[in-house]
């Protein structure tokens, strides 16, 4: 699946998106896999309460299932308007 990062999540991880092969069943499991990769991921995902997640471009929770999902995005709380 495609994993996208925005704002300071993108900056900490150092890229806007990447292709990730995973068997994670939920967003939370995917986060655990990413955290285990490298320090910059661990840093970006250190406080989930400061993060939001969208699955296939719909805001959702970290316990959302990933089966059949094509795109997951992580970002800080939005500041539009």
């Amino acid at each position, binding site marked *: 699946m495609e994993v996208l990062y925005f704002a300071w999540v993108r900056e900490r991880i150092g890229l806007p998106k990447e292709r990730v092969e995973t068997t994670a069943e939920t967003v939370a499991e995917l986060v655990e896999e990413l955290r285990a990769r490298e320090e910059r991921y661990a840093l970006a995902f250190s406080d989930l309460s400061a993060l939001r997640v969208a699955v296939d471009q719909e805001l959702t929770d970290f316990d959302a299932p990933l089966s059949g999902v094509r795109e997951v995005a992580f970002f800080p709380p939005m500041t539009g*308007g």
Partner: protein
Amino acid sequence: MRIVVQATPFDLGAEAAGFAGGKPGMGAIVTFTGVVRDNANGTLERMGIEHYPGMTEKAITQIAEQAKARWSLGDVLVIHRHGELRPGEMIMMVATASRHRKDAFEAAEFLMDYLKSRAPFWKQEITRHGAEWVAAREEDEDALGRWTPNQG
């Protein structure tokens, strides 16, 4: 209903007049326009606005559909810019049309509250000292509670 996400400036006068015109059943037109303010120190050079192409239009459309389901609206317009803006430039606008003023006012406030916290935009203040992401304000999140009284 018209949803526009663009990097280029928009013309508030033309948009407001175009939106208000030709709606004989609508007695009330409300517009909100957001303008880039300077920061407290007066050092803001630019405001950077990142967004999530693909999701942005979809999220704004959902918010606008919710407003139309909740209030009696003849039309809704949302324009939101991304990219880099200077202080004084207009970031975004919403417009609502209804028969009576209460619907137009409430729907415009609802749209603003949800756009602030639920549309995928992120602001960054750029000064000569560097760039800093704008933190979400707790009161913006709290403002949503007004529209979901049963869920706090």
